[in-house]
């Protein structure tokens, strides 16, 4: 049991512009291990949605199978959720999104769920640029099946059982970059200050947005030798920039100055404000982003923050020229050609 909710709440808890309290974004009690990184990410998701004034029922949560994939039960209790099958959430999310382009889609997955069994679907989700925020709760292991190495485990890192991982890791942001993803970020479950604005920006991005969140598994992969432990990550974090997400650009724009700041305007009028910590990195330039990633990887550092953003992103619906009205709202009249058309068709077959 990860946390026990306080039964007493202050009567004057803050409400957002929709009149919702933070607790309206919570879910049921987590059954994850105390201290599991995943719970912190759930907390960040709750906070981000609360601050973004998202109507909970306008968001759909989809996941695969794993400790990470269980978390959607633990946040946004008023959203519909779908805990599908292992590694195949991307396809379910694609179908859901095709059916109703008006909801906000949040995909939650684990490193096993995404980088092993789910690799094919992950790659093709990116390729289709589905409008979804895709969060990988990356602990470098299979938590729910008791700690086997996953494909994101770093070569040479040591499991709790003492064995050394033999295989090179798959770097999900690097892979997403190679596949042309329009929003690529990495963060750390222990760094809410960075994570919350990244989640907000990802939700605002009109296409596929990856946040690879390193999220230590306290039970199976938080040992010395693991490169996904709290200690290791804290020691090797290297951020691109500090991130700020500004929902309504107009209100804020003036307060920021140029210089090491970089402002990225989003389609919906919101703004990402980056205070650059890396000199030769430009989040809107793919080559520079790839370079920064590879550079950090080769130095054994974990590059976090917004890595790349493509503001021109065209999502699947735009590519397919689907009706602006959600397909699941179309009426019989709009869908069925009716008896007269059928008579013509019959005629054409004689």
């Amino acid at each position, binding site marked *: 049991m990860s946390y026990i909710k306080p039964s007493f709440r202050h009567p004057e808890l803050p409400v957002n512009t929709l009149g919702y309290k933070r607790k309206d974004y919570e879910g049921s009690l987590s059954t994850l291990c105390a201290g599991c990184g995943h719970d912190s990410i759930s907390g960040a998701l709750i906070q981000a949605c609360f601050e973004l004034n998202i109507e909970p029922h306008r968001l759909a949560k989809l996941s695969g199978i794993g400790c990470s994939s269980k978390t959607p039960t633990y946040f946004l209790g008023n959203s519909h959720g779908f805990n599908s099958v292992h590694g195949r959430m991307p396809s379910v999310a694609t179908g859901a999104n095709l059916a109703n382009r008006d909801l906000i889609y949040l995909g939650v997955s684990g490193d096993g769920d995404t980088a092993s069994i789910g690799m094919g679907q992950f790659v093709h989700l990116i390729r289709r640029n589905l409008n979804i925020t895709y969060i990988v709760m990356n602990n470098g292991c299979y938590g729910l099946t008791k700690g086997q190495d996953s494909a994101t485990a770093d070569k040479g890192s040591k499991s709790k059982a003492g064995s050394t991982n033999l295989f090179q890791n798959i770097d999900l942001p690097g892979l997403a970059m190679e596949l042309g993803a329009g929003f690529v970020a990495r963060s750390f479950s222990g760094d809410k200050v960075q994570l919350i604005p990244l989640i907000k920006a990802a939700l605002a991005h009109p296409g596929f947005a990856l946040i690879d969140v390193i999220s230590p598994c306290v039970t199976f992969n938080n040992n010395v030798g693991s490169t996904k432990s709290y200690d290791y990550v804290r020691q090797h974090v290297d951020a691109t920039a500090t991130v700020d997400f500004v929902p309504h650009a107009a209100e804020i724009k003036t307060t920021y100055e140029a210089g090491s700041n970089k402002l990225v305007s989003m389609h919906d009028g919101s703004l990402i404000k980056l205070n650059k910590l890396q000199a030769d990195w430009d989040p809107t330039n793919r080559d520079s982003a790839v370079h920064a990633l590879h550079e950090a990887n080769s130095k054994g550092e974990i590059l976090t923050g917004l890595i790349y953003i493509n503001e021109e992103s065209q999502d699947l619906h735009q590519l397919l020229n689907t009706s602006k009205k959600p397909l699941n709202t179309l009426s019989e009249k709009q*869908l*069925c*050609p009716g008896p007269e058309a059928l008579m013509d068709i019959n005629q054409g077959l004689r």
Partner: protein
Amino acid sequence: MQAHSVINDFVIRFANVNGTGSASANNMFAKAIFRMGIPVSPKNIFPSNIQGLPTWYEVRVNEQFYLGRRDGIDLMICVNPQSMLQDVASVKSGGYFIYDNTKPLHKEYIREDLNYIGIPLTEITIQEYTDPRQRMLFKNIIYVGALAALIDIEMDVLQQLVNEQFKGKEKLIQPNHHALDLGYQYIQKNFSHPLPYRLQRRDLIKDKILFEGNAATALGAIYGGATVAAWYPITPSTSVVDAFADYAAEYRVDPETNENNYAIVQAEDELSAMGMVIGAMWNGARAFTATSGPGVSLMQEFLGLAYFAEIPAVLVDVQRTGPSTGMPTRTQQSDILIAAHASHGDTKQVLLIPNSPKECFDFAAMSFDLAEQLQTPVIILSDLDLGMNDHVSDALEWKSTTQYRRGKVLSADQLDQIGRFGRYLDTDGDGIPYRTIPGTHPTKGSFFTRGSSRDEYAIYTEDGNAYKRNMDRLLKKWETIKSYVPKPELLQSEANANMGMLFFGTSHFSSVEARDILAKEGIELDAIRLRSFPFSQEVSDFIEDHELIFVIEQNRDAQMRTLLINELEVNPEKLVRVLNYDGMPITAAHISKEISNYIHKTNKKSKDFSLEMNAS
């Protein structure tokens, strides 16, 4: 030469080379017969290959509407030297072998009992055309023209078909007319004709249509309101989605905004295609996928999820010859078991089994209603024969009053009115709970869908009792389903037979023909054609009412018989296997022979059979 002429009752086969454009000429041939009011049944027998291998087009003409395949070729049009030996062998004694005699025929191709008609196709095309591609294409039209003379196809029907085909490319019309004429004239000049096998105009077709099953399925999906199609290419199901794309482009583009009221996604594989369908239907759109055997194997996990989590889904399985890659361009009805019990654990899946383009259309349209009403996957079991060949079919119908039945979906208002919403609560006693579509209500009706066990309120549980309650409710739902699915078609014999035949899908025509053949031998059989699984009461009644039933299937392991025995608790002795599984559509001769042999071997007579049964 055959003494008497045989009108409107023969089989003609075209032996071509894959990729040489013979398909459209051959289609024109079959269509012309159809236009002459005569029942016709063409079948493509093609290789799993793109170009250069033998391919056949076999057309049965039969004015009694016996449109199943028949063995034995009466006329063979052989324009493929590769397969000539085999082609010569396949002609019935007394039949006609029509070939390209530009080069003399080697004597190994000569059979004393055949009639040979040589047409110098290559020579004619070389004389007439310079472009090699034209030579290749017009050769096909020339032999159709020759056939017009040989078997009395009405030339103006052919010409009209050319005109229609090249509407918009008018300058191609005249050359095609000319090619037809070249063939026609050659026969006129060189042979006495028409042959004894020949056509005569009839008025048997009425308002029927000539249509492919797969296109009909696609059109059914359009009419049924499908907006999402997710698929992965695989023969013989590809043309379902191709046709859906064509119809959607025609009927589903918003005339004002030019936007598509549909989405088609070519998935990365079949697992993904099925996942997309499940996601879309979970979210309230109507969605389907089409595949064949290997795809069904890959979709197992998702089908189990949809069964257990009760998510509507529509899957069209156009069956081909399995197992494994098997014979990808041959037909079979062999995915019955894997479809009916898709996935690990205890599952039962709904099957619809059409026998004609009309039923493909009807069942496809209906499948979305059923899937949503029953909240479970619906699998349409078609096959290559039905899906990829043209069939004479009743005209399609659609009532203007038809309304989509979305099943038990709660609106925001309803959610406000009811008490606590229980996603898996059986409030009506039919085993079917209510569901909600994401986004319906700000604070009510949201729930968590999962493939793991949960209670009536969709709360995760590992309580064995809750699990069992749910599994038992699913059985209750299964009972309910029996009254929703299409009932079987019954063919009662006048004599009130004590034996019956049972068949389904594309075994239809051959079974009906076999029944007539047997009746002539004095063996009277009642008949039932299954159209769905689970079986409705009528099926048990039929089995109950007959002492012996011949179960006709196009697979090796008598898979439908397995389902019948197990679902209906039938004594296996009662159900006699009649099987065909060589990949070719089943024939009436095969069926009637098997049945008649069985009856003679076991010394059963249809009259006193019941007596013997008791004594045995």
